């Protein structure tokens, strides 16, 4: 069954979109990531114009993270104090990212920047996480604790910078400066790549600040919810490329998928959780690397410029 998308200006199979967004929603609920980094490339692959894909996925990510936020909030696994700092930093990063995005577009090298950043970012983060997950699994087998336990008074040096704050829910007592800096960097990258940034935020909070994974996922979803709601409105105002019909279809699939993902997350132990997320991120990175390193079947591409539309 096909439905015509008014903004993307093409018909699409309803069941295909529902299935796709359901699968991505499941992953998003499982890992506490927005899923935008998977959904956007998939939609572009289905011939939806990149601008429409990026803008519409923002709306979908906002909706599905809403579900996640409510679920984690009810389970008391959400740190609003930490989330507030992440959101504030994220806004600054996003503004800088949008400025960078526009200047690269003027130079005509935006596509290269996006592909290169996808490759480096995803293979690096995915590779590091995989390495860490495998090492933890090996330690586990030798009967040692999977990771060094936190001892009283011991912390990485960046947590001891000035402006220390207590985050009781996250069992964290750390300086605000590195947390805000992390949020700025992720906001910047997110705006340039058109992704929420949850896939970077979740591992960063776990590895750099040793926050319990359950709280990290809820807090990360909260940050994504706020940024992506803003991004939806901003995209609609600046480039009119939010497709409301596509957004609704993605949402129906996404929220249902996310429900099952969230349930599955409870039955998953921490080490296999990290291993799976690492493999997922690594494979997206490799997918973009293939595009960059292999000789293309068709070296030419045609771009239809917008603007002369009406």
């Amino acid at each position, binding site marked *: 069954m*096909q*439905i*015509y998308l*008014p*903004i993307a*200006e*093409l*018909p699409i199979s309803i069941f295909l979109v529902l299935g796709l967004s359901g699968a991505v929603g499941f992953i998003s609920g499982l890992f506490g990531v927005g899923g935008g980094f998977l959904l956007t490339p998939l939609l572009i692959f289905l*011939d939806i114009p990149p601008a429409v894909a990026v803008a519409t996925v923002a*709306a*979908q990510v*906002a*909706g*599905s*993270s*809403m*579900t996640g*936020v*409510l*679920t984690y909030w*009810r389970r008391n696994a959400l740190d609003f104090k930490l989330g507030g700092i992440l959101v504030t930093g994220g806004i600054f990063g996003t503004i800088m990212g949008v400025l960078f995005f526009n200047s690269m577009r003027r130079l*005509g090298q935006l*596509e*290269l920047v996006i592909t290169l950043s996808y490759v480096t970012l995803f293979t690096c983060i995915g590779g590091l996480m995989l390495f860490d997950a495998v090492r933890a699994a090996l330690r586990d087998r030798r009967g040692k604790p999977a990771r060094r336990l936190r001892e009283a008074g011991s912390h990485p040096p960046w947590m001891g910078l000035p402006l220390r704050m207590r985050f009781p829910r996250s069992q964290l007592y750390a300086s605000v400066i590195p947390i805000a800096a992390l949020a700025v960097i992720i906001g910047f990258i997110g705006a340039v790549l058109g992704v929420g940034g949850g896939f970077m935020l979740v591992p960063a909070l776990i590895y750099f600040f040793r926050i319990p994974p359950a709280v990290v996922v809820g807090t990360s979803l909260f940050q994504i919810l706020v940024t992506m*709601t803003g991004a*939806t*409105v*901003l*995209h*609609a*105002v600046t480039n*009119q490329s*939010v497709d*409301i*019909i596509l*957004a*609704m279809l993605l*949402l*129906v699939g996404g*929220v*249902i998928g*996310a*429900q099952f993902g969230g349930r599955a997350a409870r039955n998953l132990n921490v080490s296999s959780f990290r291993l799976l997320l690492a493999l997922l991120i690594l494979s997206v990175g490799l997918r973009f690397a293939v*595009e*960059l*390193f*292999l*000789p*293309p079947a*068709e*070296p*030419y*591409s*045609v*771009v*239809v*410029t917008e*603007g*002369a539309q*009406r």
Partner: protein
Amino acid sequence: MRRAAFALATACLAVLAIVPAKAETLIAALSTHRIAIASNFTGDQLAVFGLVERDGRSVARADPYDIVVTVRGPQRMLIVREKERVGPLWINRTQRRFPDRSIYLSVATNRPIKEILSDEAARRDRIGLANAQRTQGSFDFEFDIGRFRDALIRTLEGKQLYSLDERGVTFLSPALFSSQIKIPAIAPTGPYEVEVLLYAGGSVLARQTTNFEVVKTGAEQSLASAAHDRPFLYGLATAVLALLFGWLATVIFRRD
């Protein structure tokens, strides 16, 4: 005096002999002038019907009639990029801009273009996918523009936006013909121009143009215009709807 009268008479005869040769007129009509896009739109078709009218006094031609139907859709600026090898990477290096190119182009003829007219005439009369958008008397300033144009045609043909059908025009009688114009689902909205050319012996006898438009209707129309005319409200509505969906899902799936 007699000489003059004789000259006049020959001139008249000569005119009479020439005028009927140009006496074909072409009448063409479309089955519709408006293709409406609703939510169930998956592409459409329309028919061109045409009649070659011959002046009663004209002599029958030795060459058969040929018909070329060219449809040119809305224009946009198109950019064609070429990937090249830079070290180990394949990246877009060269690009060519094609301003005011139709994103939709269809050419239908009753027999292969090569049999109807010469290559040179095809360029002059703008016949065929490569020639249809050539501006009169323009030169290719860049020597490699040809391969970019070929790539452009190849890509858009792959998306069924460009099409060439050399058996696309059917003669129902020696003077009556018809042709189908296929509008693919991803066809752009806007005005489309239909040009019908009548050929015989490799030269144009008559020309007729008409047009139709592809428009969004109903909900599609109101959503698209809302997105453009009230972008803030549209964005806000989408965001609120998205959050509502998210909340609704927790209510429906709540178990604890």
